[in-house]
């Protein structure tokens, strides 16, 4: 041993790849570009440079002259900005939650809606739209609150159902319980919806998702959840790498697997429920963004989680630009855009990444 240590041989590079400088810069640049495009594009043309100077003019002590008139300012900062911010929060949350679910269940097809979040939120929102709208028409919060409550309730029942199957087959049982819950909530939701066809349009609009009514107060309500849960998830990035070795090996390395899994699932679920309640059901972000990062950068969760957060934000912001411009002045549901753009893009990434190896 000592002889080997004394020899002047090139030591192997023993390091875990993290985000990496190049991937980190590229992803950040993507988000910044998406934000700038999204603030600039719309029926009112406002140049990007003016938007930037306008933003800087709000920073104290910089003494930058406000270049926008009152109308442009209102368009950019009261109409577009909250919408852009909300899309970024929701996109980042769905992507990082999707990546975490895929890690914790060791299944690449898991999405953030796995444990019944979507079904529960959809049912909650439908019930609120159909039954409560007359009573609580004055409140903008009835539908999001009902969606949030429905999502959390569905996941709690799913978890209880999965647990009752025994700890040994917990992940498989949870996924099955999630499917059961999704099917059941979808059945009830469809029944309620069919009983109230006059509300079909509203229910449908909510289910397909969108940011057309986004306000700063939506952002304010959603942001703490997204911040807290993505922080917890990103902190678990190395733990998720350990969990990729399977429950037994992770446990033999000293990780309390069921506690780690619970922490990750709770964080991902709370964040997803908050995102869904202000945006509706936006499909595909939670699958496509993490897999793109895996194919282009690394499969280690130390890269996948932080990069998914940033890239997911940029992706949904861009998708929202498309949603509100293609058929302007009317809007496409953003879920249609994410799937329509996302699927071919993902196909290209899949082909080129496989070919490169």
């Amino acid at each position: 041993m000592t002889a080997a240590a004394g020899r002047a041989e090139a030591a192997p590079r023993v390091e875990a790849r993290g985000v990496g400088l190049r991937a980190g810069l590229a992803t950040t640049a993507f988000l910044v570009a998406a934000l700038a495009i999204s603030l600039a594009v719309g029926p009112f043309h406002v140049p990007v440079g003016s938007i930037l100077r306008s933003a800087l003019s709000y920073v104290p002590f910089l003494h930058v002259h406000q270049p926008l008139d009152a109308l442009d300012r209102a368009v950019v900062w009261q109409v577009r900005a909250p919408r852009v911010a909300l899309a970024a929060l929701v996109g980042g949350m769905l992507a990082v939650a999707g990546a975490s679910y895929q890690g914790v269940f060791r299944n690449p097809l898991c999405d953030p809606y796995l444990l019944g979040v979507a079904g529960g939120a959809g049912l909650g929102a439908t019930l609120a739209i159909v039954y409560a709208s007359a009573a609580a028409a004055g409140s903008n919060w009835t539908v999001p609150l009902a969606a949030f409550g429905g999502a959390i309730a569905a996941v709690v029942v799913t978890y209880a159902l999965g647990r009752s199957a025994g700890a040994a087959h917990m992940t498989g049982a949870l996924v099955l319980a999630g499917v059961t819950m999704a099917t059941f909530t979808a059945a009830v939701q469809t029944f309620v919806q069919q009983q109230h066809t006059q509300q079909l349009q509203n229910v449908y609009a909510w289910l397909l998702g969108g940011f057309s009514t986004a306000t700063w107060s939506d952002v304010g309500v959603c942001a703490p959840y997204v911040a807290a849960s993505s922080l917890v998830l990103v902190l678990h990035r190395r733990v998720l790498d350990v969990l990729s070795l399977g429950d037994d090996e992770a446990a033999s390395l000293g990780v309390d697997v069921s506690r780690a899994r619970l922490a990750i699932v709770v964080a991902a679920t709370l964040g997803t429920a908050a995102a869904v309640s202000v945006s509706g059901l936006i499909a595909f972000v939670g699958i496509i963004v993490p897999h793109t990062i895996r194919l282009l950068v690394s499969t280690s969760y130390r890269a996948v989680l932080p990069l998914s957060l940033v890239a997911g934000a940029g992706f949904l912001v861009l998708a929202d630009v498309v949603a509100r411009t293609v058929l302007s002045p009317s809007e496409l549901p953003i879920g249609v855009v994410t799937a329509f753009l996302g699927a071919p893009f993902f196909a290209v990434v899949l082909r080129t990444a496989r070919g490169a190896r």
Partner: protein
Amino acid sequence: MIETRDLWVRFGPVAAVRGLSLRAEACGWTALIGPNGAGKTSALRALAGLAHYEGEVLLDGRDARRLGRRAVARLVAFVPQKPETPAALTVAEYVLLGRTPHIPYFGGEGRRDREAAARALRRLELERFAERPLGSLSGGELQRAVLARALAQEAPVLLLDEPTTALDLGRQQLVLELVDALRGDGLTVVTTMHDLTLAGQYAERLILLDAGSVVAEGTAAEVLSAPNVAAHYGANVRVVEDEAGVFILPLRTR
């Protein structure tokens, strides 16, 4: 040193291990042998703290249950029969995961962890492979990477569940020689083994389990008798014993 006292492992109404008491001395090699379903793997998993058990597991005389999961992981490294080896992970990244019990829950690897992983890679002559993805390794190389990960854990006890499955004869010997050499570095080794001849060649103590109970225990010459193998494996064998060891040769009955 690892020891069990009256160890029971149950799956519902079925007891896979019934009152096992064993003592694996420091730097020794103990092999658990026995037919399929004898309880070898269950016993090993209990030693690693992966199976619920009744009775006691003592690590250096301390009750493993009181030590907590991380402390146990610093004392006992466990390699399952079919380890998960994510194909895209590099060998170095995989070996670094072995440092987990030494790293805070939300923490990352420090210099000492990278050094320990580099030592493990050197010990198993895997330096050249450090940056290769696990998916590109052959079966023998992969088995060495798995051993390196266990070694990076720097635990004094190494538990191996069937370390030679799916390896050809030459690679089986290579891996077992490596494990034997690690023993020279101060590791206590406990393995389960299918191949009785190899078990006899490498382990200095054999424990023959059948239906969860110890039915014979001692050196290869003491345990590997034709009547023992016939009674507990239902196998017809010829036992050849010479100065090189004990050899179990299967014989066709007809």
